[in-house]
Structure formats: C-alpha cells, structure tokens
C-alpha cells in the first residue's frame, strides 16, 4: 500500500541504516528476543509496538549495545550500522552511543545543572570551540526538546529539580545535543502532557530529515502519527514489520490486529 500522507516532509530515498540478522537475547535462561531480523531505514521513524514484556526495550538496547551493561544479558546474532558490525571487538561502545543516542523510558538527568546536562556530550565530543558556541548548542537543543521557555531563566538549577515531564524533555534535548545519526527513544512521552507530547512528536518528525529514529511506544495513536514503519513484537518475536499505514489499516497477522484494535487473543 502506498503511504497516502502526501503532506509529510519529503525525504531522500530510504536506505538501510541498521540491519539486524538472527538476533537472540537471553537474560540468564530467559530467552527475551527470538531470532529477530529487521532492516531499519535511514531518515525514517520506526515504531516498536507490542504488549508489555514482549522485548521492545531489550531489542532497542541491542542497537547501541546498552545491554552490555547488564551482566546476565547475552546477545547473539549480527547488528550492522551502515554495514559495520557494532558488536565487533574493535568498536568502542562510547563512540557508538554518540552515534546512536538514546532516550530512556524513565528520565535520568545527570546530577548536574540543566546547562551541564546538555553541554556534557558536546564537550566530551569536542563539538564546540568556545563558550559562545556551547551556549548556542545548549539553547538549540533545549528548544528542540521543547523545554527552552521553561528553563531559560534557571539554566544553573539542577536537572533533577525539574518535574518528571520536564526531565524527560531535558533528556531528549541532551540526546539530540550530540547530533546522533540514530536516536533510540523508549516511551519518550509517557510522562508528558499533550502539548509537550505534540512538541516532541514534531521534533521527531523534524529529526527524520537527517536521522533514523526508533521509538518504542504504548500509544497506538502515537505510533500511527509519528512513524513511517512499524514493528510489532510479541513474546520476543518480531511478528510483523511494515509500512505504518498498512499495519494500522490492514495488518497481515491476527496477533497484530488483536493488539492494535485492543482485542483479547
């Protein structure tokens, strides 16, 4: 089916940004991801949907090796970013995570000022030559995170002094400050009000012009609104992956249909 949303921002022809082959994830004996194969496109928003515990966050964390930090977690298979195996021993996970940024399910600001939360990444990656440039990056990032107006007068206040929804937007601002090529977002809007949610969705759509965005969401409407591709996970399996318009109007698999229409079974 063609995507009928002709008013969407134009992007170049899509090509694969991340390609996963035969990915298995185990937490000790728990087989959490079962033989997942998927090509995530560049300049595209991909939504991961599925019931709680189906492995969305687990698979998302594979894409920037965040699972390395979990002792009992074992990842098998192959994941390539621009054709390069990200699990190759030669790959530095810190460098990888600068390229593949992440916004977590729960906001996790550093115990530092709002300003430093944003400036941290650009500083260590040498993105600013002087204070003025850094100021500019901080303001631009906070604006993209849809939180600038609320914090511009108290950039020295600790990030943890913000409300939950504000902290989440701060984390989004922090994630885009280093200009990653891929942005992974795990339920970024679960603590946000509708206005902030719209602002974040608008940001996601903007980012799509240059980046590949993967978003985990429990809101079917959000997945439908922001993504061009949708992947439905169920019990660790990738059940269906395809164009979002098709998934939400004519899903192939009855498990997908039950899930998106809110049915039992």
């Amino acid at each position, binding site marked *: 089916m063609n995507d009928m949303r002709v008013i969407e921002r134009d992007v170049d022809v899509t090509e694969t940004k991340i390609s996963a082959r035969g990915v298995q994830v185990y937490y000790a004996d728990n087989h959490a991801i079962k033989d997942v194969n998927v090509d995530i496109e560049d300049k595209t928003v991909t939504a991961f949907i599925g019931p709680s515990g189906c492995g969305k966050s687990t698979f998302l964390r594979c894409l920037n090796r965040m699972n390395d930090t979990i002792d009992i977690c074992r990842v098998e298979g192959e994941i390539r970013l621009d054709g390069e195996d990200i699990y190759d021993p030669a790959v530095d996970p810190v460098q990888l995570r600068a390229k593949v940024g992440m916004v977590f399910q729960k906001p996790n600001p550093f115990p530092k000022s709002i300003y430093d939360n944003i400036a941290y990444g650009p500083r260590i990656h040498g993105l600013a030559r002087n204070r003025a440039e850094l100021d500019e990056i901080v303001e631009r990032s906070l604006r993209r995170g849809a939180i600038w107006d609320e914090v511009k007068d108290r950039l020295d206040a600790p990030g943890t002094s913000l409300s939950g929804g504000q902290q989440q937007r701060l984390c989004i601002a922090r994630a885009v400050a280093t200009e990653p090529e891929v942005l992974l977002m795990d339920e970024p809007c679960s603590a946000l009000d509708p206005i902030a949610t719209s602002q974040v969705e608008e940001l996601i759509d903007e980012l799509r012009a240059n980046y590949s965005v993967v978003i985990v969401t429990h809101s079917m409407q959000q997945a439908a609104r922001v993504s061009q591709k949708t992947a439905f996970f169920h019990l660790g399996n990738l059940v269906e992956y395809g164009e979002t318009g098709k998934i939400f109007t004519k899903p192939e698999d009855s498990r997908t*249909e039950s899930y998106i*229409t809110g*049915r039992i079974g």
Partner: protein
Amino acid sequence: MQDDRRHIASAFDRDLEAIQALIMKMGGLVEASITEAAKALATRDEELAEEVRLNDKAIDELEERVNEEAARVIALRAPTAVDLRVILSVMKMSSALERIGDLSKNMAKRTGVLVQMPQINGSTTALKRMAREVEAMLKDALDAYIQRDAELAQDVIDRDGDVDQMYNALFREFLTFMMEDPRNITACMHLHFIAKNIERMGDHVTAIAEQVIFLRSGEVPGDRVKHDLITPDAGPEGSGGD
C-alpha cells in the same frame, strides 16, 4: 456481530454493535419502502404511495444518526484495522441506503401522477418483478453484512447484471409503446424513469455488497461492467432521482 474476538473495552464492542444495529434498522425500512412503492404502483394505490413518500423521512433521519455515531466513534476510539473498516463501511452503507430510499420515494411520486392516467398494459407487473429482485438482493446484501459472508455478497453483485437486463428489456418495451401511440408518451416516460430508478437501486445494493467484501479483505472489488444500454461511462445518477 463483527469479530469473534471481543475488545478489552467492552464499551467499544457496544458502540460498534449499536451503529450496525442502526444500519440494519435502516435496511429494514428501505426494504419495506421498495416493497410498498412497487405494490402502490402495481395496485394504483395513491394512499400507499403517499405513505412511502412520508416514510422516507425516517430513513433520512437514521442516516444522520449513523453519521453522527460514526463521527463519535472515530473521535473517541480512534478505530484501526477491522474496526476502522466497520466504521467506513457503515458510512458508505448508510449513504447507499439513503439513496435507495430516495429512489423509492421518487417511484412513489411518479405513481401519484400515473394513477391519474390510463393504465399501460402489463408494464407494472414487470416493474414489480424487477423491484422484487432488487429488494431480495438488498436483503441478501444485509444478511451478508451481518454474517460477514463474502460469497453471498459476491452473489448479490453478480445478480445486478440480471437487473440491468430487466431494465434493458423494459426500456425497449416502453419505446415500442411510445412509437405505437404518442398518447402513451407521458405515462411511458414516467414508467421508464421508474425502471431506471430501480436499476439505480440495484447499483446501490451492489455498493453495499462491495462493503462486505471490503470488510473481509480490506480491498474494494474492481470496477463492474455496466450492462444497461443508456448509461454512459460515468453513469449519471439516473434520470429520475430527486
């Protein structure tokens, strides 16, 4: 009614069932309207014809209600996949049923005029048979909808060809009458418009049957070939609707 698998939110099931119940109610009124209109014509019953005209209001009101309910479900429940198809299909079906009701009303109006004129032999019997066939198709289309029976729906679509044939035969017959005696022209023109109305009803019934196939498969069946003689490619909305 729609899917064996129930929604977790049972109110959603109730909304969808309620809106489909409205469609069935509307379908029942439209079926009755066709029967009565054909009967009024065959028996030259002016009173019954008047009743058909008045009853059309209830059909129009139901169409309004279906559209309001559909808008409500879209706004409140954001239906997707098969649920979305249910909503889209009831909107199309209600508009098709409303059109059939209008055509039936127009038939009743012309009956009111025809009873003032001398009868044309045999013509109304054929019209009644044609109306009965369309009504049977409508009944089957509605049954197919309730049962989600794509086979029955396809059967209805195929039978529309017969209706087109009946119309073609009547068209020739009326032409002959008019050529035989120009005093028949006014009455025959009315009868011809009635035949055309019934033929158009068949098209709307076909549109309803197509919705059953859409519900099941997500695809609307391809373009049909028209079999009647005078409908140009883009087919005007009959000549007698109002």
